[in-house]
């Protein structure tokens, strides 16, 4: 399977393997000794795990939203659809892993299903996450079945059945299915944010724009990931380029990036008025400004200036967009590291511990390994 791996990749594999082992050991240490091994303490009870959860949830949902559109587009390769759905699935799985890591009693996680409480945001996160995971699994299955039908024939039957139904209905069923999926993702997102905005103790969440901001972030992350994926596919896996998608991606990126800025400023104006005075004394506005420069202004500038430079458009711009979104999510962690040097820094003092960081790196490594395995298997198949 990995015969095409060179020496450099073996070193990378060994490095990832070590990080996975260290992460697993740290997780065992956390499980045995409790969440006290993390840097979390009252009043900061959510940290690096929840930051990662929100980021990967948005990333997975974003890719999936594009998949609903891509799946009904003619001229886009099945390989690209397959890799997109796999990335969405891995991203959503990461979100699931990170929320599990954050539980004080991980052994009781299934209580959310057996004692459901629909007023809880976490319950809706659970519903959304599982729904999106199921959708991405279906997309992965259908596109994989098209590029490489399963050797075990029984596994191909559902796809053949779905294909038969779609053909008879002249692809109408696929379009309706995609529309329903898109509607479901959006609706679930809005229900979750509605539950969040009802939280009495968090006036900074009391804004009708929270759902829209989350959706825009998800769409930006999804688009950036797909652009990177497509350029990587073209470079290494030999999947054909698709120009209309690139043009559309550029225009859509500029639109979403500008809309994101407008919504964030509107949100500060409408919903966060109560916390504005409190936050004005903290590092958060500085970080927000930084994230808007890195994640919004700079990408828009680069897209408009360098229209033909593939490295800038396919690699640098999407990475900047992803970094900007991550910066917005991770403000609580970053502020803790910089508070010593900034006199007006917020009094919150959460700093992730070494153990926490090792766990996060271990999870990242496992995800990278999974993606590498799928890509190399595909390249091997091409050979």
């Amino acid at each position, binding site marked *: 399977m990995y015969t095409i791996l060179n020496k450099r990749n073996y070193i990378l594999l060994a490095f990832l393997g070590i990080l996975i082992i260290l992460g697993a050991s740290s997780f065992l240490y956390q499980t045995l000794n*409790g969440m006290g091994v993390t840097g979390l303490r009252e009043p900061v009870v959510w940290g690096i795990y929840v930051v990662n959860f929100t980021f990967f949830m948005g990333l997975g949902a974003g890719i999936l939203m594009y998949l609903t559109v891509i799946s009904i587009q003619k001229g886009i390769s099945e390989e690209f659809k397959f890799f997109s759905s796999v990335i969405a699935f891995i991203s959503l799985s990461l979100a699931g892993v990170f929320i599990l890591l954050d539980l004080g009693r991980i052994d009781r996680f299934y209580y959310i299903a057996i004692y459901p409480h629909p007023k809880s945001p976490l319950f809706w996160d659970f519903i959304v996450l599982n729904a999106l995971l199921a959708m991405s699994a279906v997309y992965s299955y259908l596109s994989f079945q098209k590029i490489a039908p399963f050797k075990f024939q029984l596994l191909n039957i559902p796809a053949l059945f779905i294909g038969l139904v779609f053909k008879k209905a002249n692809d109408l069923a696929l379009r309706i299915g995609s529309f329903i999926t898109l509607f479901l993702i959006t609706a679930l997102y809005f229900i979750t944010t509605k539950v969040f905005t009802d939280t*009495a103790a968090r006036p900074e969440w009391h804004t009708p724009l929270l759902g829209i901001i989350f959706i825009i972030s998800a769409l930006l992350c999804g688009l950036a990931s797909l652009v990177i994926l497509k350029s990587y596919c073209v470079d290494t896996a030999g999947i054909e380029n698709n120009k209309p998608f690139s043009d559309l991606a550029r225009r859509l990126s500029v639109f979403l990036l500008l809309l994101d800025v407008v919504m964030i400023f509107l949100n500060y104006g409408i919903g966060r008025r109560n916390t504005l005075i409190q936050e004005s004394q903290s590092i958060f506005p500085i970080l927000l400004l930084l994230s808007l420069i890195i994640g919004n202004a700079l990408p828009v500038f680069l897209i408009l200036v360098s229209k033909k430079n593939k490295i800038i458009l396919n690699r640098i711009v999407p990475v900047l967009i992803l970094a900007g979104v991550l910066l917005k999510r991770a403000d609580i962690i970053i502020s803790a590291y910089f508070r010593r040097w900034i006199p007006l820094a917020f009094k919150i003092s959460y700093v992730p511990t070494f153990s926490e960081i090792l766990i996060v790196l271990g999870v990242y490594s496992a995800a990278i390994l999974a993606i590498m395995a799928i890509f190399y298997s595909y390249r091997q198949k091409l050979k």
Partner: protein
Amino acid sequence: MKEKQYAMVVDTRKCIGCKTCTIACNMENSVLTTRTWQTVLDTVEGGYPDYRRVFFARPCMHCKKHPCVDVCPTGASYEKKEWGIVLVNQRKCIGCRCCMTACPYEARVFNWEKPEDMLTENPVVPVRRLGVVEKCTFCIHKIDEAHKKGLQIGTTINEPDRYKVVVPACVIECVGNALYFGDICDPESQVSSLLKKNKYKRLAERAGTEPNVYYIE
């Protein structure tokens, strides 16, 4: 249908900030020395040159509109409807800490470490396990037992002596007699009487949680 609504009144004029209530609570409820269910906060009121340092106990507010109960994904946080007391079912808590994020009073604590470091362990109140949330219960075990035995719960106008009735540990041990406990629905209770006679306020009223702990100014 609510039979009773237990509430606490804190007379800030009498509180001296000695934190005896905190220690009494920790010992009665087997709370770790590093945690507090009953915190004593202090603030400064008034303007120059007439400043006044004000101490006040901050237990769980046992809110009528309880955001902590709403956000709990498993229903581990619940309200004992007949008494209006908000509790945590330790067997159902998954340690997600949503309730801690939702509480405007930061009245909940999480068991970050193994429960090893405590003053005493009350056999009636077992120590909570690692990775779950806990908080003030208004000494529910005492109220529960008193109900079963038919004892009087909370001080009344006729019986203002806190040593002769059943009240939470913090109330009974308060050095300055600044804490009062009783049924706010009962006009004969001392808490109702105090609220009628005095000017009072509740913490973070803007959050709309309708807390059941009142502060006499």
